[in-house]
């Protein structure tokens, strides 16, 4: 067994803002006392446990937020979801994770390799962690709190490693630790040296049990985290912002953590909702659709970019929330031995779906379409817009123009000839189209019934047009299409 403990320093702050860049000092407070702060606040003299009034006196610009344990729990689940990518055995602590990694080390090319990949996955989701490894989960956590970066491989080396750690890492409760401090105990080693009875006298049997667990002498069972099959994560901006780049950066934090979780669950999403929350108005909701299930964070980010380019936000954004309720299982796909291969039909289909969604995100849903043939002889009704790639095939007809006007255009008539910047000369014989007598044309300028004689006509610049004359009074001429 080898346990990797991750501790997220200043967790109330990390969970809320996920390491977004900001200029003002930040702090999170509970019961009017500072519980977490950033480097800028620390530099101005703010300290943990300080009263809010004192902290604001030291740093007037300090931005503060109340502590929210629900936000922290939800962010911890996101982090745990990312960690599931590396081992199925992940246990939650209040501000950290415990990962049993003995079985995964080889897969990632050693402990250093695993740590490197894990750190970058967490960093992409906006988390920064201190870590340490030990054969028991409690010892790993104590080491991560006391001397981050250490790795203890064998249980025999544990007592020596724990000896020098300050007593605070045991997290045995502030009141109990205060009693022990008064008794002259400073380090874990001091407590280990005391006989059990002596600890019991000082109401510190609990501490002895923790030490036994850390040394592996008492069982320390941990419930493992299992991934809920949905994503609902939220991220707050330190200051309300409008800028697309800032919003995209914040959103990519959410996408990265969501996509690492999806990858760990061998799942993808075809649709998700990004909610941009405002202070006063109702949230702006962006629905991101990918066509095919995906867990590609960059794709989601680029779709968001197109959406943001198209909309105007009613006011600055205070927080982002990503929801992806419907997961679609995505079994792994095998690649050939040498990595490269011709795109499979599935790859092609994915590429098409991605293209259509990306174009629609920026240009609007109706601006991207395929054309389907319909069983109607009236040219303006013989085809209709359809989903790209799902259009009905057309049968070729000779003597049809390449371009069709959206609506037939009324032509002037001079000396009995149709006129468009000059006289139009009809070529050949007329093609009669009579159709649509069954359609009701109520409320339309054009009668639905078509009684028309179509001609190919040559205009003054030698252009070839497709025109028709109504086969009933008032026998008007119309332009329907152009031969290009």
């Amino acid at each position, binding site marked *: 067994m080898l346990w990797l403990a991750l501790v997220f320093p200043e967790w109330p702050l990390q969970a809320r803002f996920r390491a977004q860049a900001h200029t003002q000092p930040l702090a999170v407070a509970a019961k009017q006392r500072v519980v977490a702060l950033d480097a800028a606040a620390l530099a101005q003299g703010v300290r943990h446990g300080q009263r809010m009034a004192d902290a604001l006196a030291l740093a007037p610009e300090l931005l503060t937020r109340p502590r929210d344990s629900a936000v922290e729990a939800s962010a911890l689940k996101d982090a745990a979801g990312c960690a599931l990518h590396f081992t199925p055995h992940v246990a939650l602590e209040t501000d950290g994770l415990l990962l049993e990694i003995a079985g995964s080390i080889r897969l990632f090319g050693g402990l250093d390799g695993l740590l490197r990949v894990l750190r970058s996955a967490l960093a992409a989701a906006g988390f920064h962690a201190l870590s340490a490894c030990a054969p028991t989960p409690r010892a790993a956590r104590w080491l991560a709190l006391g001397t981050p970066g250490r790795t203890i491989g064998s249980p025999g080396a544990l007592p020596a490693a724990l000896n020098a750690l300050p007593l605070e890492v045991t997290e045995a409760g502030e009141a109990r630790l205060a009693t022990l401090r008064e008794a002259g105990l400073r380090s874990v080693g001091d407590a280990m040296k005391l006989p059990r009875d002596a600890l019991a006298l000082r109401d510190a049997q609990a501490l002895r049990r923790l030490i036994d667990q850390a040394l592996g002498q008492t069982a320390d069972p941990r419930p493992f985290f299992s991934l809920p099959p949905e994503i609902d994560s939220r991220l707050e901006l330190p200051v309300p912002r409008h800028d697309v780049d800032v919003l995209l950066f914040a959103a990519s934090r959410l996408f990265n953590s969501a996509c690492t979780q999806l990858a760990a669950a061998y799942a993808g999403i075809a649709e998700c909702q990004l909610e941009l929350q405002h202070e006063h108005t109702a949230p702006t909701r962006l629905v991101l659709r990918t066509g095919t299930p995906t867990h590609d964070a960059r794709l989601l980010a680029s779709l968001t970019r197109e959406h943001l380019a198209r909309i105007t936000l009613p006011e600055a954004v205070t927080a982002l929330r990503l929801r992806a309720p419907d997961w679609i299982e995505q079994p792994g796909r095998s690649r050939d031995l040498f990595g490269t291969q011709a795109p499979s039909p599935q790859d092609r289909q994915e590429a098409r779906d991605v293209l259509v969604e990306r174009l629609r995100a920026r240009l609007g849903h109706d601006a991207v379409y395929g054309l389907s043939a319909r069983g109607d002889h009236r040219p303006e009704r013989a*085809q209709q817009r359809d989903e790209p790639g799902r259009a009905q095939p057309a049968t070729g007809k*000779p003597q049809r123009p*390449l371009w069709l006007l959206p609506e037939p255009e009324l032509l002037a008539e001079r000396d009995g000839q149709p006129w468009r910047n000059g006289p139009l000369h009809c070529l050949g014989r007329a093609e009669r189209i009579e159709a649509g007598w069954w359609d009701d044309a109520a409320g339309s300028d054009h009668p639905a019934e078509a009684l028309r004689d179509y001609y190919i006509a040559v205009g003054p610049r030698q252009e070839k047009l497709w025109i028709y004359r109504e086969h009933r009074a008032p026998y008007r001429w119309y332009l329907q299409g152009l*031969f290009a």
Partner: protein
Amino acid sequence: MSASSLHTLLHRPDVWRANDTAVDTCPTVSTGHPALDAELPGGGWPIGDMSEVLTDCCGHGEVSLLLPMLAQASQADGWVAWVAPPWYPNVSALAAAGLCTPRMLVIQAVSAGERVWALRHALNSGACSAVTGWLDRVDTALLRRLQLAVREAALPLVLFRPASDAHMASPAALRLQVSVAAEGEVRVDILKRRGRPANRPVHLGTRPGIPVRRADILRRRPALALVG
């Protein structure tokens, strides 16, 4: 030196003769018009390079110039993207020209920036086998981006631009100016191509969709009279 050894020498790929068009350029796809192919380096539309058709024609067969290539591309497993066509493409005419119409993707975009953006995405997506688009009032920086995208995508890209843009510099590898010649003919001037510049225009009979000419009608009249 015998004639045959001179012949082999002249056909070495590293020997270039000044009256040749560039031969070993990028791959091409035939235009479907033999007279035009003969004048184009590599014998067709360049693949992985931008081509421009500069024309003010409308209704003269300027798009028909492209149809054989688009028809061929639509037979491959990819879409044929039409970015900002001036009117609706008519599927029955396109099907008659051999296009597989369910593989058509029509994209409407208004500004030049959006059109170029859509063209670049269509090129880079890996979903298309040919891309064509209509542009006007486009600056060279946007065209350069497009040229980079098409080079990466290795697809044929043909842009339609107004004839007034002919004087503007363009990164396109091939620029054709299409204008009206006699009836049923277009005149194609090759403004720019790889290798030796072209000095004579190509005349192509397009006669779009018109199997009967006026002469045919005149000839048919007596026949009609006979039947009557």
